[in-house]
């Protein structure tokens, strides 16, 4: 696929690869575990090169570079298993579109440098796929919002300094029309963040808000206006989610490992491996389609949903095959194949489930009811 990138893009790809030599095998793409300090250092190192703000407008302190460069960066970072792109990126895109001048001044520099770290506080016990039903309330009195409620499944929340909180400011039942976005410091009194250990050995987090006071200047965008902002920020961000680098690396690892196994010459195994290889190439063109649409300024929502389903299901397929081929070696706790297998189980859930993504494709690409 290298040929699809122009000379400048290829030069950038080489630069990123060279930069990543110091950050190989952090494995934080698969699971953070106790690696957060290294991940945070990586984000600062990426920030120091101006790459966290690569696509921001120059007026906002960015490099004004197109989506392809961002894809190349996060694709290579995924291939290196170094990390997923930070949540601060979605915060920044929202701030750039809807933040006040004072907010730009306060937040964009530390996000650009990688100093400010965020977790996404959207989901709740009763609001998963149906996010618009969320109940966590932010009640305004004077210059303070008081937040009460419960969030769950927040990635990284136990490590970061801030939550990017989606809360209800409108009437109960106002669904998407009554939601607002806030930046909340994780150390704020009344906010309790506890781990929910996950099967691959990492954790998501639960965030309880009990009369948590948030200054009104921490609300980003208009009150009750979050839904549209979230859609816009997401559309600015789609091309860097689920880059093919992760799958390519999975396949390389499985291939290397298979080459050393007695099953390497088994015709059935070889055939299956070829099928997986084709799947990874297919996933790559779907990911690049999203980038292409973004570059053309066209709506990539459906292409991104298609990419998410296809990418994550290939990811599970590779892990499943690897586990089978590994035989009992895969069963040893802490083995590489086992980590891949366990981790792949949640890929089809986090960031929107396969069922919901297929629903989007069916409705919007095929006009099905």
């Amino acid at each position, binding site marked *: 696929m290298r040929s699809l990138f122009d000379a400048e893009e290829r030069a950038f790809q080489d630069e990123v690869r060279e930069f990543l030599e110091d950050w190989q095998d952090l494995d934080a793409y698969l699971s953070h575990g106790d690696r957060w300090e290294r991940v945070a250092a990586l984000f600062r190192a990426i920030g120091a090169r101006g790459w966290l703000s690569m696509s921001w407008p120059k007026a906002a302190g960015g490099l004004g570079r197109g989506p392809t460069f961002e894809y190349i960066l996060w694709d290579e970072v995924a291939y290196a298993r170094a990390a997923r792109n930070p949540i601060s990126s979605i915060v920044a895109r929202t701030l750039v579109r809807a933040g006040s001048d004072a907010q730009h001044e306060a937040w964009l520099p530390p996000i650009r440098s990688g100093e400010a770290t965020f977790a996404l506080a959207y989901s709740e016990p009763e609001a*998963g796929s149906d996010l618009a039903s969320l109940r966590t309330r932010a009640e305004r009195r004077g210059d303070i919002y008081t937040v009460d409620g419960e969030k769950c499944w927040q990635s990284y929340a136990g490590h970061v300094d801030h939550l990017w909180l989606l809360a209800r400011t409108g009437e109960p039942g106002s669904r998407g029309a009554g939601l607002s976005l806030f930046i909340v410091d994780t150390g704020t009194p009344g906010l309790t963040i506890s781990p929910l250990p*996950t099967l691959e050995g990492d954790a998501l987090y639960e965030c309880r808000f009990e009369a948590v006071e948030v200054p009104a200047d921490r609300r980003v965008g208009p009150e009750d206006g979050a839904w549209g902002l979230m859609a816009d920020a997401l559309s600015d961000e789609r091309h860097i989610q689920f880059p093919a680098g992760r799958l390519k690396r999975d396949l390389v690892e499985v291939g290397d490992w298979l080459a050393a196994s007695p099953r390497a010459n088994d015709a059935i195994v070889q055939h299956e491996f070829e099928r997986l290889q084709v799947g990874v190439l297919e996933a790559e063109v779907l990911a690049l389609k999203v980038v292409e649409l973004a570059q053309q300024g066209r709506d990539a929502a459906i292409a991104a949903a298609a990419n998410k389903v296809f990418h994550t299901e290939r990811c599970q397929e590779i892990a499943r095959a690897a586990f089978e081929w590994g035989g009992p070696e895969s069963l040893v706790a802490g083995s590489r194949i086992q980590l891949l297998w366990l981790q792949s189980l949640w890929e089809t*859930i986090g960031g929107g489930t396969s*069922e919901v993504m297929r629903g989007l494709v069916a409705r919007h690409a095929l006009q099905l009811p």
Partner: protein
Amino acid sequence: MITAQSLDADERALADVIATACSERPVGAPFDLAAWQVLARLGVFSLGSDGPSPARGLVAVFEALGEMAHAGPLVETVIAMAVLEVGPERAAIERGETFACVGAAPFWPFATKAQRCFAIAGEAIHPAHLTGAAVPVTTLAGDPWLRSAADLEAPLANGGRALALGRVAAAAALVGAGRVLIERAAERARTRQQFGRPIGVHQSVSHPLADCTIRLSASEGLLRTAAFELDAQSEDDGARTGMAFASARTSALMAAYQAHQTFGALGITLEGPLFAISRRVRQWASLPIGLPLLEARR
């Protein structure tokens, strides 16, 4: 027609006894000797060599053990009991006082607790002696194994039958566990509300669960008829039980995936409703007792 796909009254009673005896134990609980000895007292480890229909007995009991995702070297003990000569050592294993290790190089389940070791190598079972340095490892489902080289003696004459019984036990455990996973997922699909409706109203949720149930029924039927044939002929060329095991592992693994998908984020938690079962399924599905199916006879 012989109604081999259903359990008869005696078989159901046997399964009920096991389920009742283990009812206090959380599903998927880690290995513990007292629970193991409860199974021994109920005669679980002598099933494969007892009565007129040992394989059918194994099916009834192991489906129930599968529903509990019961820990311990269950299938391995069935295999060991079928190859061990009658004597005090076998009797001690039968009583749950000691263990036999049945593995395939280089992994030896529960070997530190075992007095005797057997190695599965293809279609044969050999007495084995671990040699050199043994490294303890823990498995996905939390079992203690040793990684070690081993010297093998000549294969045992009754290895083929022992493996056939082992496959029946493993297939039954997988079918039982797969059923529980799908029951839990179906319960979730009926009760979890999103968008003001149970998630199970979506065919993208309900149909894959239906597919799993269909598959599991096929595996159950194949397993129960394979056990019936094994008992009727009291010898087996391995093909039928090999296919039953292959079917059960595919169905149970599919059930595990679908259950995880149905539960959303809750399903991927360490202490959640699924992982204690799904990791046991993954481990049973990896038992080194499969047949090269392409070579199996029709």
